[in-house]
């Protein structure tokens, strides 16, 4: 970083706002650039605050961890007790970190971790204090700024408190803005913010407006916009997720017509990998995955959160795409074939997407009453089994959700249909059935931890004689396969709830 940029960075940071440019130049000369890799700790809560940092580029996660005096001591680990956490994020240029270096008792109050490669300017506390002692006017101005920052942080936490009580960041922000309304100019863009935050298609506009107000608003607007912006971590994360879903849809639906379905499946799953890399998730049981592909993966199916609805009324199912992109693709190097419902005539978004992926369609006659004319249900069932068996024989994995519908995690799984198991029974060589249970993909995944559990694989013939009547198969599905999956879904729920589960990503 060159000196001009360092001066500009400090001058535009909240910590040095309004300070005489001469002093900013001198301090920039004392500061040193310091870079952090993604995942690296910048400052750690409880440690001596011997420097402050100004973010030049990157995204940072800020966590205030509190040990709970109400929790009993852990008998095995002695003094260590569970913690509660309050989390914020920062991504704007000039964001000050470790400002406890300017406030007694000079102990970092939070842990700041780089979420992406982050470049900062480091200002050593001893040098800062020596400079302040030698320049009293600067000392006073800087103390005012440090106090301002401390007050801003307190305001942020208090607003988070309101959001917590209202169980809604948006409502808390609306309440804050309503409260400040009499002190704002009637033309202030802040009056629009609650409305813009109310729909995912206008959240972008709200964020841009807040960014502009932080830079250019009057003093009250800058204060309020800053407070609101600090609360928007979850909303920003949800917006990024939504944009990812939009992009993935277009990768598939607008793929060149000559591109083979296998290639499109692969590309879409690579995009999903990027999407899920930004979420909190945990997967257990990968050691249970068969070494080679060509098997049937059965999983419970969760409803989609309405926030994920695209403008064309189509929703990309996150649970099945998670299993395909984060479990199966990394292990087998190939995108699995999914069994999906054939689009109804009016579902143009659904059709545009799935028609390009080479998945196996099941018609609503298999699952529900079929109002469409065409082949008989028996013919369609035969066609499905032929196509699916062909994929298995070619060494491709197939993912099937035997419920034929989707429900929230808490009610999952509902009753199984027998199609997946009938396929296993009729295919030679007989494929393994690999159960995978998922949890929390029906929630806002930007704000929750999702989980997947891979169970031990088995062959249907180990449990049901291939020549046994259908009633025996149905009995097995209802009284063995379904309860087993139900137990696994509860395991996945518990896994997602654990405070610090091993193997968590992000």
């Amino acid at each position, binding site marked *: 970083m060159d000196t001009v940029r360092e001066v500009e960075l400090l001058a535009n940071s909240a910590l040095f706002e309004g300070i005489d440019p001469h002093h900013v130049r001198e301090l920039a000369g004392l500061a040193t650039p310091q870079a952090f890799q993604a995942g690296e700790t910048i400052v750690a809560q409880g440690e001596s605050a011997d420097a402050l940092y100004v973010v030049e580029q990157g995204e940072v996660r800020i966590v*205030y961890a*509190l040990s*709970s*005096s*109400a929790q009993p001591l852990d008998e095995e680990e002695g003094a260590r007790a569970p913690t*509660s*956490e*309050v989390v914020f994020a920062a991504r704007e240029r000039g964001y000050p970190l470790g400002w*406890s270096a*300017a*406030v*007694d*008792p000079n102990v970092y*109050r939070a842990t700041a971790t780089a979420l992406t490669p982050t470049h900062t300017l480091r200002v050593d506390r001893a040098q800062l204090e020596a400079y*302040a*002692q030698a320049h*009293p*006017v600067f*000392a*006073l101005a*800087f*103390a*005012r700024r*440090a*106090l*301002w920052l*401390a*007050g801003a*942080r*307190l*305001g942020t*936490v*208090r607003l*988070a*408190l*309101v959001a*917590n*009580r*209202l169980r809604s960041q948006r*409502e808390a922000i*609306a*309440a*804050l803005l*309503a*409260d*400040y309304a*009499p*002190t704002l100019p009637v033309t202030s863009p802040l009056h629009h913010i609650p409305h813009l935050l109310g729909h995912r298609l206008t959240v972008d506009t709200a964020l841009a407006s807040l960014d502009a107000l932080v830079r250019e608003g009057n*003093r*009250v607007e800058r*204060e309020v916009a800053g407070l609101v912006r600090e609360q928007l971590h979850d909303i920003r994360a949800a917006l990024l997720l939504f944009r990812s879903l939009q992009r993935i849809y277009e990768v598939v639906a607008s793929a060149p017509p000559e591109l083979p379905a296998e290639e499109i499946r692969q590309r879409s799953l690579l995009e999903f990998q990027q999407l899920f890399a930004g979420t909190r998730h945990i997967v257990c049981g990968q050691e249970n995955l068969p070494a080679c592909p060509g098997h049937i993966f059965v999983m419970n199916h969760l409803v989609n959160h309405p926030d994920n609805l695209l403008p064309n009324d189509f929703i990309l199912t996150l649970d099945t795409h998670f299993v395909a992109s984060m479990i199966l693709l990394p292990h087998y190097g190939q995108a699995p074939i999914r069994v999906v419902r054939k689009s109804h005539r009016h579902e143009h978004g659904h059709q545009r997407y799935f028609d390009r992926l080479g998945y196996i369609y099941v018609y609503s006659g298999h699952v529900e009453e079929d109002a469409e004319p065409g082949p008989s249900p028996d013919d369609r069932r035969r066609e499905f089994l032929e196509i699916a068996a062909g994929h298995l024989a070619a060494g491709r994995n197939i993912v099937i959700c035997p419920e034929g519908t989707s429900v929230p995690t808490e009610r999952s799984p509902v009753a199984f249909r027998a199609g997946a198991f009938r396929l296993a029974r009729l295919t030679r060589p007989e494929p393994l059935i690999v159960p995978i249970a998922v949890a929390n993909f029906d929630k806002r995944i930007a704000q929750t931890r999702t989980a997947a559990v891979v169970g031990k694989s088995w062959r249907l013939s180990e449990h049901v004689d291939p020549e046994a009547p259908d009633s025996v198969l149905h009995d097995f599905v209802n009284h063995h396969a379904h309860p087993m999956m139900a137990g696994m879904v509860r395991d996945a729920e518990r896994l997602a709830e654990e405070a610090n589960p091993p193997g968590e990503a992000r």
Partner: protein
Amino acid sequence: MAALIPLSALAEVEILKGSPAWALTLLAENAEERRLTRGALVVRQHGPADIVWILLEGSVEILLQFEVVGDLLVGVQREAGSVVGWSAFREPHLYTSSARCEQECRLLAVPRPAFEEIFARDPLVGANILRRVAATIDARLEGALRFLTDEEPAGE
């Protein structure tokens, strides 16, 4: 005007520790002791922050007041010498929360201009005072965080 506040009492106020005698004298000459009954508002959220209050006796509830949540208790100050209304030191000089007497309180009201006069006369003395105020806010941050995670609010 009420009787001059003893300098020794002011010297014990946390944010004024280390301040020279002339600064304490200036504050004492401008300060006024007030008694407020239980339930009385010391400062009102969004009101002009023209006065720095110093708690001498009693305890004060810190409240966030929003229409949709009513009065949200975010802290209680009990320590003698603690500051109520630190927003007087911070632009835009509007109180960010309300403070209400939990019981009968005795407080010192110091007009903001008295502090500004100290700051103008000796910036290093001013910086010391402001650093101590910032430390006070920092301590309340932890209390607010505990309250956010359903801990008891830390008393002062």
